[in-house]
């Protein structure tokens, strides 16, 4: 009984509007470098479309379980499917040492049946530069600005690219034309 259509619509909708997010990077868990837990100075960077958007302060004492609880305002540009959270350790050279990164699909907090201003608490597995698992990052996200044109999640969308979408309210199976569109799935898009 999995209704996959809803998440696809959310995908499209999420990518189309310029929204502002209130993203709180709460904490990290079990962060290691080369297998050894780090001692301090971890911080997190939020990237949209691979461009750094916001950074947290450095937790100078937190060890491998840093606690930031920092609220960041993140602009979500058009057609963004993912937000990347990178956890790095501050080094003297300026560019921090990468501990791990996670991709947060925008559809995890936009679209779906939860209301627009719902505060989502999400956690993700961090993977290091070679793709190995390296800790967890905990965030909370709330969409700050309402969607444009007053469209609600239950109404049909008007995609810019002129693709017919299926009306989610219509329970009937057949009868509408749908054109397929290649969609970027999370695991395929994960950074090399």
């Amino acid at each position, binding site marked *: 009984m*999995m*209704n996959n259509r809803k998440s696809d619509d959310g995908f499209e909708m999420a990518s189309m509007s310029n929204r502002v997010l209130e993203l709180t990077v709460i904490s990290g868990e079990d962060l290691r470098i080369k297998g050894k837990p780090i001692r301090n100075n971890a911080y997190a960077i939020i990237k949209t479309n691979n461009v750094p958007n916001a950074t947290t302060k450095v937790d100078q004492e937190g060890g*491998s379980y840093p606690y930031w609880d920092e609220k960041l305002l993140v602009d979500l540009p058009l057609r963004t499917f993912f937000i990347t959270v990178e956890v790095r350790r501050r080094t003297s050279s300026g560019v921090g040492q990468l501990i791990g990164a996670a991709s947060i699909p925008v559809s995890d907090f936009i679209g*779906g*049946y939860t*209301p627009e201003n*719902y505060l989502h608490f999400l*956690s993700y597995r961090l993977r290091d530069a070679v793709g190995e698992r390296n800790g*967890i990052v*905990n965030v909370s996200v709330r969409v700050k600005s309402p969607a444009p044109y007053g469209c609600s999640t239950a109404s049909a969308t008007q995609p810019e690219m002129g693709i017919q979408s299926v009306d989610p309210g219509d329970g009937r199976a057949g009868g509408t034309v749908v054109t397929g569109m290649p969609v970027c799935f999370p695991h395929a898009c994960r950074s090399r």
Partner: protein
Amino acid sequence: MGNCCSDGGSGRAAIGATAAYPTIDGPNDAVQLFLSARGCHGLFSQIELSFSALGLRDRDLCSKSDPLLVIYVRGRDGAVQEVGRTEVVLNSFNPTWITKHTMAFQFEVVQTLIFRVYDVDTPFHNVEVKMLKLDEQQFLGEATCALSQIVTKSSRSLTLDLVPGTEAADSVCSQSCGKLIVHAEECIGSKTTTEIIFRCSDFEHKTLFSRSDPFLVISKIVENGIPIPICKSEVIKNDPRLAWKSVFLNIQQVGSKDSPLVIECFNFNSNGKHDLVGKVQKSLVDLERLHSSGQGENLFYPTSSGNNYQNKILKSQLFVDTFNESIQCSFLDYLAEGFELNFMVAIDFTASNGNPRLPDSLHYIDPSGHPNAYQRAVLEVGEVLQFYDTDRRFPAWGFGARPIDGPVSHCFNLNGSSNYCEVEGIQGIMMAYMSALLNVSLAGPTLFGPVITNAALLASQSLANSWHKYFVLLIITDGVVTDLQETKDALVKASDLPLSILIVGVGGADFKEMEILDADKGDRLESSNGRVASRDIVQFVPLRDVQSELLLYYISVWWFYCFLVTTLPFVGGEISAIQSLLAELPTQFLTFMRTRDIRPS
């Protein structure tokens, strides 16, 4: 609310590991049930009941009635026990009694209260109320209710009709016996929570090669001088800065602000035998003073030399970095504001249960009325949760069976309808279950994904209308889940929603794998695309045969008998596994509401 900040699996096993009392190693369900049912992790709110009555009958010839109210509690086994009496109000048909009755609110059981009103005859007016023999008084009427019925009303007052009851053999009540009004108030101590952040300095390492993984255990001292653990901090690993996360102490867990507390610092050892580093004995008032002065208190290590107990004062000092008292909204405050718990149930109809027509099947309906394992689980959970659901309409599903004409369904409506999934009341669930047994053919495999996804859909859809509903899904199954990854995916998605899932395992299967789903016993759940569950929403318990469970319970508790029985109040009766499941629900509800800052206004 008393939250113990522990870091999950490793820290959890470690209460009371000094030579004075035996260690509790690993998951020992029976002992955990015993301790948690007696307050170590329990959420006990103290409720004060006050009473008044309207329109009592007139039994005396010359004057009005002189009513007295007696309060009884009916236990699970049906035994009725008197717990309190009010004073006698002279000459009144509409008395308001001054004497109040205080009792602990226990979420996980149905607390049935029976009230009986008596008219005290004139010759007895000067006798102390406690000494009055009730069979010498005139019985005026009786009323029954569950404590949860009173606390879920927004006014916290329940009006009950007094009925003649079984004792009034002498008269048929042609006129009404009157009404009894019971009002509940939560004692303020239940709501005051203290947040404390402890820090330690100058740690002395016991040996050169030992790592220090310290954690704190806070205990309260009872009359015999024996400490009872009430809270435990997380284990600090690999952190030179010895500051623990906040511990929350409820004033009522502690007793009072002046009650002596022992704060012990242990060094965590993975074999379960944790070394005591040192301890401090302070009350909450002393800790508050330490915080305001900024000074530290030296830990001491009890050593015995000969007959004297001497304390070796250590260099390490304990500091109180934060001491915040706050009045938090309790679970009962949310209930009074209209928040509700919506009960949903999903029943396993896979073929491994056995042919329902044969007596050895888990789905066998006994003609004598004795409930089977599935019915027992639904009744035990449902009869507690039904009071918290305002419309008493419960979604009920079955999974793993083939309805009359169709393929195997992993989430079909138990009532046979294709449009709506709800049934009316616990009786409705029972009837739908019995009719479903006749109308479906058991199949398989055991998949939880579709049922959990459906429940999550209901929970997220209800958010559009109101944030006052919290959903509880009960899954009763006889076997191990086949789609473990799909189940994990569904659970990870649901962890962000107002949903808790209770899984009860029936029958004799080995449920070891199912314990992975319960984060208390393992790691956080991870979905196939990298997302991790943000909170632990699943609890699993096997519903073992009652006999063997009792035996296990007694064997495990035997060697704690001496000091536990003298120090902990004996509540009486068996603690069922399902009660331990339910006991966690208010905490899960509160965590969800508080982190999202959803408060009762």
